[in-house]
């Protein structure tokens, strides 16, 4: 994959000095405090850090998908496909989300799917249609592309009737519906079982390659980064402390915090999911057990 961050002119997403300050109780929390970030078309980026380092807030700040927080300040320069997202009109922002812009998948697919609607309907909604015969084929295609079995049965199920992995695949199908140029994945596998984790990661990798879709993966798990990302940003306390090529950073971390993260994750975990014997390397198959 191309890792040329230097060629900033053609960047898909360019973030300069982004600050997201939240009001928590009476105090101001500087969740994101002056972050620079660049994503090239078709590139895959990882943002790593512990929980509370501000990585999720960064993603939501960029995409304007804040929820349940009181925003004290949001400033900086966020250019996506040449448009400034911090000053964009609501209608234009919605248009970007509806088609060809960006999508996002979340850590907790059960909470992020409406429990009272059939999953097929929820995918259809992202296509800008209701449950018409016209969108039906497209819905099934998307579910299949996200690694779910090609059956009309599944689309008629409710979220609670699916397994965790299947739900995350539904989220992926929803995200794909708008044919995004950039997909944000916020801890996409954290809530899943170990074997399912790997399958979902493989699906994401396949979609990234096949669709030439840029990806930003937010995770605390360096194994995920090793599997998916070309470049990495390491965040701590709302700031990027180190960034660079994944392989280089893994081999030769400059910032002590990055070194510590790598050290910790290699001790707790296998060196990476691609290591032999780490997990049965079943391809993302429709037969995923319920």
């Amino acid at each position, binding site marked *: 994959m191309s890792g040329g961050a230097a060629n900033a002119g053609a960047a898909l997403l360019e973030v300069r000095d982004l600050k997201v300050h939240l009001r928590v109780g009476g105090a101001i929390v500087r969740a994101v405090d002056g972050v620079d970030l660049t994503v090239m078309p078709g590139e895959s980026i990882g943002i790593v850090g512990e929980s509370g380092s501000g990585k999720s807030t960064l993603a939501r700040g960029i995409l304007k998908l804040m929820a349940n927080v009181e925003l004290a300040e949001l400033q900086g320069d966020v250019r996506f496909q040449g448009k400034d997202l911090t000053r964009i009109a609501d209608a234009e922002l919605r248009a970007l989300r509806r088609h060809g812009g960006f999508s996002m998948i979340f850590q*907790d697919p059960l909470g992020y799917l409406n429990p009272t609607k059939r999953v097929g309907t929820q995918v259809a909604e992202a296509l800008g249609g209701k449950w018409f015969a016209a969108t039906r084929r497209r819905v099934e295609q998307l579910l299949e592309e996200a690694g779910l079995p090609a059956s009309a049965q599944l689309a008629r199920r409710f979220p609670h009737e699916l397994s965790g992995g299947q739900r995350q695949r539904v989220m992926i199908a929803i995200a794909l519906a708008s044919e995004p140029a950039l997909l944000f994945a916020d801890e996409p596998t954290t809530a899943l079982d170990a074997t399912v984790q790997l399958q979902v990661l493989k699906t994401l990798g396949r979609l990234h390659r096949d669709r030439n879709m840029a990806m930003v993966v937010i995770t605390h798990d360096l194994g995920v980064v090793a599997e998916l990302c070309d470049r990495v940003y390491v965040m701590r306390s709302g700031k990027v402390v180190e960034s660079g090529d994944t392989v280089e950073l893994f081999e030769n971390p400059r910032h002590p915090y990055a070194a510590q993260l790598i050290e910790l994750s290699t001790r707790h975990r296998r060196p990476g999911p691609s290591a032999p014997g780490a997990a049965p390397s079943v391809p993302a198959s429709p037969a995923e057990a319920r």
Partner: protein
Amino acid sequence: MLRFVLFRLLHAIPLLIAVILVILLMLQFIPGDPVQAMVGDFPVSPEFRAAITQQYHLDDPFPVRVYSYFVNLLHGDFGYSYQFQRPVWDLIAESAPRTILLTLVGFLIAVPFGVLVGTVSGTTRSSRVDHFWTSTALVAYAIPTFWLGQLLVLVLAVHLGWFPTQGMGPLVSRAHGLSWFLERAHYIALPALAFAVHEGTRFARIMRASVADTLGQGYIVTARAKGLSRGAIIRGHVLRNSSLPLVTVAGYAFGAALGGAVLLETVFTWPGLGLLLVQAVRMRDNMTVVGIVIFAAIAVVVINLLVDLLYAALDPRIRGRG
């Protein structure tokens, strides 16, 4: 779903029996002469006393009396009112439909009002609009229904003469067809409105809280990420999911209204169960009082059961189970 139905039934039946038992037990503790307590302020001859004592097993121990009462209940026998000189069941059967009618019409106003106001004040971007509705709901909720009824009668019926002051219809009516219907609607308007103000604002408060809760859910973020407009999110996700708790609340309120519309019916002299209960209490006609209270208990338990089943049918998370 079947298992859920069975489970709820197994829960409801013992509850109902226990409620009736407690009611009968309380009758044991009435001070004074039990025969007099049953018939109310009504002269009792010795022969009559003997007949009642035998009929209701007053000389037998408590369990025998309870047993005979339950047997009578199962035969649809709620006892006999010596004040009204009619079987209690006849009185109930005559009054209950009127209460149901009033409650239904009240709900027709209250539910849409509550859903609309709750959703608007829960989703509005203007805190002023929200404050307005929250404060209005608070004050409206604090107005006792019976006082509101008095005020409505005073202003709209007495001074402006737009509505009749009381009752369900004129003493003598020659109206037919549509005009009969309009005449009835004319009489029910004020009591239904008074009922709806109270229940509607309560529903609005619950709906608003429910909407606020829904807005904090992850799937609202997903809906935003899909690029749906505000209106589409409210219609497609907020309204539906927030209404679910209201189904339970409104359903329970319906059951409670069947026995509890006492004050409302008294203000408007609406001849339903509530007014019957008040009349019976005033005349110390305990046979009728107990009959109505037990009927109200049955109505509440049955309706709550139906509401729970309805909720289960509406919420796929429960529907799928069992």
